[in-house]
């Protein structure tokens, strides 16, 4: 802990040294500023080359500090990407709050290193686990040094924790966070307008008793929908927070939709199987109940053949997927005398 208390002092010292050195290395700061302005929410994506350019090959004290977020797209972890968004909020808020004070704004830059594309730069820091945030202050030489890291128990995935970390280590104030509202102003106004226009019509319909709620087709549709979401394991996905699909461990361009193993599933596989159930069931209902009322004979024939083929394929597919996923092989038990 002793190290942490001295950090602001180190930072001050470095700032004062900067004023001398800043003259010698103004280009790097300018370059960083331009990189920042071209990147989304001001988070600079550092690559193997830029890490060496801005950190390792610059003599200390550097005229700037870097706050680096270590990311890994391949890990495909939702909490990590959420934290990355929070980090972007901090960056954007910092820039917005210090817009007219270039002396403050140009001292700290928010960066990101991705393990999947720039593993060399990532390795320089000796990061063992994610998420991790590191402050490279102007005097830092040994990148493996853990004093610049955010404490493990402080990493809780919120923008507030990042702000606290920055403010405790650098004497800078980030200022209020600017989170984007859930709906933009135009969206809200459009929704309000739609509601306002439709209200009189709705009231008229309710009074007449002609709402969608009085239509049994709507209810049928809703029940099928509830059924669909129940059997496709949506609750499983919500409770366990499963993603719709994951990236393959070996090949990051390949997406994996189906997970082998009985008690887990990915979002997309459940939904696709649930869809197959409903397709077969509703086709059966349609063929036996509604198709007979179609007048055109050839239409009936074509549709019926189509329905049979589709049902057959769907059932085969589901049974195949189930056997593959669970690893069970269903056998028939014949009487032993038949063998």
């Amino acid at each position, binding site marked *: 802990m002793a190290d942490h208390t001295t950090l602001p002092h180190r930072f001050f010292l470095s700032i004062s040294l900067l004023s001398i050195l800043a003259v010698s290395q103004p280009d790097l700061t300018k370059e960083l500023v331009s990189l920042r302005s071209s990147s989304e929410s001001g988070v600079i994506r550092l690559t193997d080359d830029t890490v060496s350019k801005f950190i390792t090959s610059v003599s200390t004290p550097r005229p700037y500090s870097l706050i680096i977020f270590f990311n890994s797209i391949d890990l495909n972890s939702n909490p990590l990407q959420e934290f990355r968004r929070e980090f972007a909020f901090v960056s954007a808020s910092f820039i917005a709050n210090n817009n007219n004070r270039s002396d403050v704004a140009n001292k700290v830059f928010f960066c990101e290193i991705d393990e999947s594309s720039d593993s060399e730069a990532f390795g320089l820091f000796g990061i063992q686990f994610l998420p991790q945030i590191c402050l490279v202050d102007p005097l830092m030489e040994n990148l493996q040094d853990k004093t610049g890291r955010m404490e493990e128990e402080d990493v809780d995935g919120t923008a507030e924790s990042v702000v606290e970390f920055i403010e405790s280590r650098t004497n800078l104030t980030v200022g209020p966070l600017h989170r984007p509202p859930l709906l933009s102003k135009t969206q809200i106004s459009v929704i309000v307008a739609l509601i306002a226009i439709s209200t009189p019509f709705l009231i008229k319909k309710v009074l007449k008793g002609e709402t969608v709620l009085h239509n049994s087709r709507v209810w049928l549709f809703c029940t099928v929908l509830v059924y669909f979401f129940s059997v496709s394991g949506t609750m499983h996905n919500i409770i366990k927070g499963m993603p719709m699909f994951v990236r393959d461990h070996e090949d990051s361009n390949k997406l994996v939709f189906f997970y082998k193993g009985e008690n887990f599933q990915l979002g997309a596989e459940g939904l696709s199987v649930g869809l197959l159930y409903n397709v077969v069931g509703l086709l059966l209902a349609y063929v036996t109940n509604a198709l007979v009322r179609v007048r055109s004979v050839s239409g*009936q024939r074509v549709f019926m053949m189509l329905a049979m083929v589709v049902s057959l394929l769907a059932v085969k597919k589901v049974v195949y997927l189930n056997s593959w996923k669970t690893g069970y092989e269903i056998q028939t038990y014949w009487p032993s005398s038949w063998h």
Partner: protein
Amino acid sequence: MAANGSPKPEPMAAKKASPDLLNSSFSFKSLKLKTKQQELLLRVSILGLVYVLAFIARLFSVLRYESMIHEFDPYFNYRTTLFLTEKGFYEFWNWFDSESWYPLGRIIGGTLYPGLMVTAALIYWTLRFLRFFVHIREVCVLTAPFFASNTTLVAYFFGKEIWDTGAGLVAAALIAICPGYISRSVAGSYDNEAVAIFALLLTFYLFVKAVKTGSLSWALGSAFGYFYMVSAWGGYVFIINLVPLYVLVLLITGRYSMRLYVAYNCMYILGMLLAMQIRFVGFQHVQSGEHMAAMGVFLLMQVFYFLDWVKHQLNDTKLFQTFLRITVTSAILVGGIALGVGTASGYISPWTGRFYSLLDPTYAKDHIPIIASVSEHQPTAWSSFMFDYHILLFLFPAGLYFCFKRLSDATIFIVMYGLTSLYFAGVMVRLILVATPAVCLISAIAVSATVKNLTSLLRTKQKVPQTGSAKGVGSSKSSSKVTLDQSQPFHKNGAIALLVGVFYLLSRYAIHCTWVTSEAYSSPSIVLAARGAHGNRIIFDDYREAYYWLRQNTPTDAKVMSWWDYGYQITAMGNRTVIVDNNTWNNTHIATVGRAMSSYEDEAYDIMRSLDVNYVLVVFGGVTGYSSDDINKFLWMVRIGGGVYPVIKEPDYLVNGEFRVDKGASPKMLNCLMYKLCYYRFGELVTEYGKPTGYDRARGVEIGNKDIKLEHLEEAYTTSNWIVRIYRVKPPTNRL
């Protein structure tokens, strides 16, 4: 059969139309049976076969192993049933059990649902009375299959009520072998659910019947069905919420009738009074938040009736409108205030954790680890649905469609039952069981309606003049279909193809169900089976070995500490006192055991001394590769222990968020009591050819601490396959 009203005319007419379709009808003809009698005979014999089928399909485990009780909870039920038959009902009702939850004990009579035990005891006494001298264990083992057979009968009558006799027969056949139900009702799974599903379906059937007829006697029957359900299983909460919801939907959709009023009021009031006789439920039925919906709907019914009466009295519509507005507003206001005051004053208790976790599925994960830790409380993946329902999943949407085509009070009920229970089944794996009857019934409607439509298509080709009578109940729609048919011979082929498809699907269902029952649901889990290298079956009977060892080699007042999963089995088979068991009523006590297991040996020793523990029992699968052992459950012990005692911290046992037992494991993990007890002397053992000593086969790693020394405990017994290990707690050393 006579009690169930006259059968609908169309099936007999159907049989009349095609007697030559059935080979057996020739013999009927020679016997000169009337069509109605033929039909009845067929129906009864099919039902009889289904009844037998449902029973014998559940006997795999008895044939393969022996007649024994399965799993964990059934051992408690067996122990209490034994007590009931030996000591009688009053002793049972007032039983204070000092052998579990030491030193607290447990009031058994007030904390259990006695329905199952009383049922088994009654069957036992009846058999004794008839001079069949069976052992009570056999009765317990076969109770579940017997009630499953009875459920098929109820399913038949229910199906007949909501659709027709054909649907009833199909529903009975489907539910007889549906894996979702078999999973909880094989011979030996002597658990509450075994009788509860029967009671649940019976209650629903009688209620639907009561709503249909408006008769007090059916409503009374449904109240008694509800009483039986309450006495058997905590799942009765589902009934007492679904029925009011159903009534509410009927009220909203304008289907209020005097029949509904009679049925619901009688069922609710009598059912409530009867349910309160069960001590475990008692006044909860009028106080807890889970039961408030039923009471609210009951009051709403009175308001409806009152309004009806006032409308009858006042002939002026305008006056009535004003009156209506005032009454409805004040009723809602009064109800809201009463609920608010009741909750605030603590008179109405809030919802329990389990109920919350159903409504808000993420609740349990965050707040109650003891619920989230149980594997059967996990949410359901699609493959589990497929495993338990198979083709019913394809038929269900079709069944829904048919139900909507012919909306009635009964079909509305079955649709609501199906959808709510399927939602709950999605939240918790074990609730697939509750949804099974509904899924079978709705699918049966789909099968029956489809097959009926198709066969009538086939028949009308042959016997054109009879079409009119064959379509007795059929709507004008289907007769128009018939007239269309006559000009389209193609339809016949299409109908045959579809029929073949449906029968193919059904035969696949039968094959799937038999296989699943035999391979997946018939293992007793107290005796483990594995396949050897040559495909032969290897039996591990270590649990019983350990429990009998305890029974014969330890002092009768010895206290055994183990994780709660094994508590019921130790008391039932080992006859020794346990610290915690599967009735997880005291979280702190369980957390204390969790804390002892996850502390260092000397700290754990103090805890064990304070609980007077003499023996510690752990389950270990490192030698056999048995994966549900205590090491794999260990993180839950840490979580539950840490939930009460903050000194236990989960990250101390993890390395970078990963749970390991090899060299890279955290030091706390390598030296905690559970690790030491499981892996004591394991470092000397070669478990698999070509692997180093101390190779854990359940986790596939070489263990990290091979040199384990015990200070305060000593090994007392390890079973032949090392699955159960028992340690004796040494008495404190003499102080000099």
